[in-house]
């Protein structure tokens, strides 16, 4: 039900993103979604890629501080604000808080990448509400 997200430690320094992206490009890994927040001293770039395990190995062997986490990638059939609102409301009603979230559009579908404060309850909500999640196999095809 979850997929691997790669987190990369970045210093707040000119040009640090390039090194990471150069490595992924050389290894012909497809980046599907990426996000970096505007913190001051250091940052974490979060990435969804088509081959997370291989991407992780490439980064590690080049001395990039990287970390794999499990996140939910929930597929909503249409990029509409009502559907988005309803999806989030289901988690809130179950008492869950969103720690971070970002989204991307895939073939007209809105995909929400999501981490909450309780993965087990999140899993439960997704199962009960019959929500669709992207799997590692889906990623490999992107």
């Amino acid at each position: 039900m979850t997929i691997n997200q790669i987190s990369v430690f970045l210093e707040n320094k000119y040009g640090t993103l390039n090194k990471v992206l150069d490595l992924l490009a050389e290894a012909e890994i497809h980046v599907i979604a990426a996000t970096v927040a505007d913190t001051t001293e250091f940052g974490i770039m979060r990435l969804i890629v088509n081959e997370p395990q291989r991407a992780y190995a490439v980064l590690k062997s080049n001395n990039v501080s990287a970390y794999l986490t499990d996140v939910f990638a929930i597929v909503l059939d249409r990029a509409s604000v009502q559907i988005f609102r309803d999806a989030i409301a289901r988690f809130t009603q179950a008492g869950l808080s969103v720690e971070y979230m970002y989204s991307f559009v895939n073939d007209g579908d809105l995909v929400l990448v999501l981490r909450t404060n309780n993965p087990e309850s999140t899993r439960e909500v997704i199962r009960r509400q019959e929500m669709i999640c992207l799997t590692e196999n889906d990623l490999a095809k992107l």
Partner: protein
Amino acid sequence: MYWQKDIETMQRSELEKLQLERLRKTIERASNSPYYGKLFAEMGITPDTVQSLNDLSKLPFTTKDDLRANYPFGMVAIPLEKCVRLHSSSGTTGNPTVVVHSQKDLDEWANQVARCMYMVGLRNTDVFQNTSGYGMFTGGLGFQYGAEKLGALTVPAAAGNSKRQIKFIRDFGTTCLHIIPSYATRLAEVMYEEGIDPVKDTALHTICIGAEPHSEEQRKRIEKMLGVKAYNCFGMSEMNGPGVAFECPEQNGLHIWEDYVIPEIVDPITLQPVPDGQVGELVLTTINREAMPLIRYRTRDLTCFLPGDCPCGRTHRRVARFRGRSDDMVILKGVNFFPIQIEKILMHFKELGSNYLITIETVNSNDEILIEVELNDLFTDDYAVLQQLSRDIIRELKDELLFTPRLKLVAKGSLPVQEGKAVRVKDLRKLI
């Protein structure tokens, strides 16, 4: 257990008698050098000035500036044709300092180093690899001759080129290294990167670390990384080089070989002796050197005498781990601190690597300190966890330093790699 049991475990009263005798001979010998000859004549100093060791205080101090002013041979007390070796400091600020040795001086120095190595359990069955720079730097030849005297198979690998060092360690079955502490962690990291487990894949069991002040925490980390026992060694080119003081298996303070030097610890301002346990500047008088005796040489190294007897049975006094040179001390906002105090805190945190850099700069006419430290590896993807780690480190640093530094966590491998003597402090303050 002892290289020279009679000397290492000599009764204090006997040892002091030996020191007095040698000190008087040293004064006589030193008078033959142009520098001490003139100075002693002016001050009326003769061997008879010293009737007991307490009379040491009647003798003048010698400083590094005196050595520089008498460059190159103004302090040599025997004819140059009886001298066989010369070592010199780099002399980046002004004249370099020079120390000249007779053959007997070199033999004694080798004996001193061999005694240290034997003390930490090294024998002629060991394979000893010296990663010091050779040439003028005394850590190279000093350990070379000492290890040969001990009878160990000695590999003069010299500094740098980690992959080659590792190849030697594996091919020759190296059991002991002499290495700078910052380079020890670097070498361990290169082994890990190459897929080599220092514990399983090498025969290393002991390392001698010195030339850089390092904390107990740094020592423990090195011991764990390489799977060895690490012993702190102290020396300086003015006092021959390595072998002046060395830790015994107790790893609690360094024994100063008092048949070679008379140690004093004084307040660097008043120059009066400080009580045992109180930190001051180490002052050393050579009492077993022919070519270039030095009287009450101010080392600028800060340490204290450890009170009490050492369980190892050696009677030569112990000094505490060195806190750094008096010139390493940083004064910021009226507070004094040593870089090693910062290292001690950083090494508490297992999330952090061993490489760090302290930058002092003037920001808006305020002096500020920035500490950059490498993360060991990313262990979370949560900003809050990293920010909390940052806050915890800053809190501990503040408790130690009494002011709040800025801290920056940086990615592994992003600070300059330390292969020589580590540069830990960059002082960019503008002088107003």
